[in-house]
């Protein structure tokens, strides 16, 4: 807000009566235009659902598991099927986790990789890590 002192503003209007109208105002306050910031939208207001993973992530994980374990294309890989039930031993599980790391560009910690036993768990962990990566990027 800026205050502009206006001492004298002379308005001369020539009317038929030759009237001189003089407007005298001492202070005129001119609003400079403050940018009113509305609601700060710095953070995405997306709700994070902890338990669900996106279906395309789950399908990608299923594809990778099928390729790694050399399963046929029509074998059932459900989201809650365990890797050991599909015929994978611990070495295969580590390989699957590494392939997922490469595919999604994330980095899985030691302890986290021990806990992954089903496809759904892997998809959830991937979602979480991708979120974290996108937040810090």
């Amino acid at each position, binding site marked *: 807000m800026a205050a502009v002192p206006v001492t004298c503003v002379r308005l001369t209007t020539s009317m038929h009566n030759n009237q001189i109208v003089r407007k005298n105002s001492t202070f005129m306050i001119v609003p400079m235009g403050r940018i009113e910031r509305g609601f700060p939208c710095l953070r995405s207001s997306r709700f994070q659902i902890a338990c669900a993973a996106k279906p395309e992530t789950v399908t990608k994980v299923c594809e990778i598991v099928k390729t790694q374990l050399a399963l046929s294309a029509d074998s059932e890989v459900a989201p809650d099927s365990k890797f050991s039930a599909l015929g994978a031993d*611990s*070495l295969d599980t*580590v*390989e699957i986790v*590494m392939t997922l790391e*490469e595919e999604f560009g994330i980095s899985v910690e030691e302890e986290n990789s*021990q806990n992954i036993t089903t496809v759904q768990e892997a998809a959830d962990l991937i979602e979480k890590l991708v979120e974290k990566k996108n937040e810090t990027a």
Partner: protein
Amino acid sequence: MVPPSSRTEILSLFRSFLRSARQFPDYNIREYAKRRIVDAFHDNKTLSSPSSVAAAFADGKYQLQVAKRQALVYSLYSPKTKSIMDIKY
């Protein structure tokens, strides 16, 4: 007397091996390293006597150091043009 290596140690050796194999800039060497690591660990999966397991584990550790050194040296002198297999269309 070194205590026998546990399952988790072997798995973490496997992981570090695969991670260092990823760092090779050359496509051929990278793919070969990945194949060789998986094959070696699969072959030694059925070892039963603790002494042979310990020997294989020590050999694996040594090879891991070799792989790490070589990945570093290769990345210092990597060629400018990438292999055709690395370029995704």
